[in-house]
């Protein structure tokens, strides 16, 4: 719903390479899966809600800042950053190990 609405609002200005743009959203799906995993299959989220939300916030704030830098400098955006991989792999890994 968010994607449809934001693309509609951008209108003509939105890039013609829609598929490429959509690929940049893959990491948000990874984050959603990770948060879903730790919420449903473990007690990590209930016991350490502050830690999880802070980790999520730092990961996303890094991604957002990087997207802005890429937007201004016309650099290629790389969505799979170390912070994201650490967040997803560490939390999913803890789930599997436990």
């Amino acid at each position, binding site marked *: 719903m968010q994607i449809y609405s934001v693309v509609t609002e951008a209108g003509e200005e939105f890039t013609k390479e829609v598929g490429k743009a959509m690929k940049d959203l893959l990491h*948000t799906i990874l984050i959603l899966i990770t948060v879903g995993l730790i919420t449903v299959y473990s007690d990590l989220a209930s016991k350490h809600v502050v830690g999880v939300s802070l980790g999520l916030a730092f990961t996303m704030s890094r*991604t957002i800042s990087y997207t*802005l830098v890429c937007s201004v400098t016309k650099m290629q955006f790389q969505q799979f950053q170390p912070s994201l991989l650490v967040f997803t792999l560490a939390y999913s890994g803890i789930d599997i190990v436990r």
Partner: protein
Amino acid sequence: MLLFTPESIAPNVLTVAGFLINIFGTLILCLQFPFKSPAPTWTLVVYGLSVFIYQMLDNLDGKQARKIQNSTPLGMIMDHGCDALGLVALGAGITRIFCVDSAALFLVSYVLMVTSFYMSAWVQYHSNGLMILGRFNGVDEGIPIIWICAFVSSIFGQDFWQMPVSLFGQTLLVNELATYSIIFCGFGTFWPI
């Protein structure tokens, strides 16, 4: 406020000052342990004030830049980069104010908050710098809600968020209701009206 701001003050100084004040208020609020217990009233007042000042300076920096004709891409990165980092502080502040019990509900709302912000950056990247803020965006609606919640907590106590409310035959806690509202805003934020 713009009238009282000297032209010698650079917009980026306002941005960074607002960000640091926000972090300062959050540290004071969140350093009271244990995290799920009620915070002292004065910390809630300081936090509410710090978020209010942060919002004011965040809005002021762009206007100051246009006033002194010093709008730069670096300023834009500084402004939104500080906002992105401020998300960390705001997230921690909300958790502390609401004394959240339902981690799942809170995390869902928080994911929606940060993805809404990411959507703005994403569409900016793919639309030649076009910035789109949602109908219910963090800057105009989200931040005032946070400082209002902080002041409400300081007046009525944080037990206020644990009060049961009947809605459509369902009994919910006030903090659950507030979190559902955040979820609703997160989904509907970019909906064209």
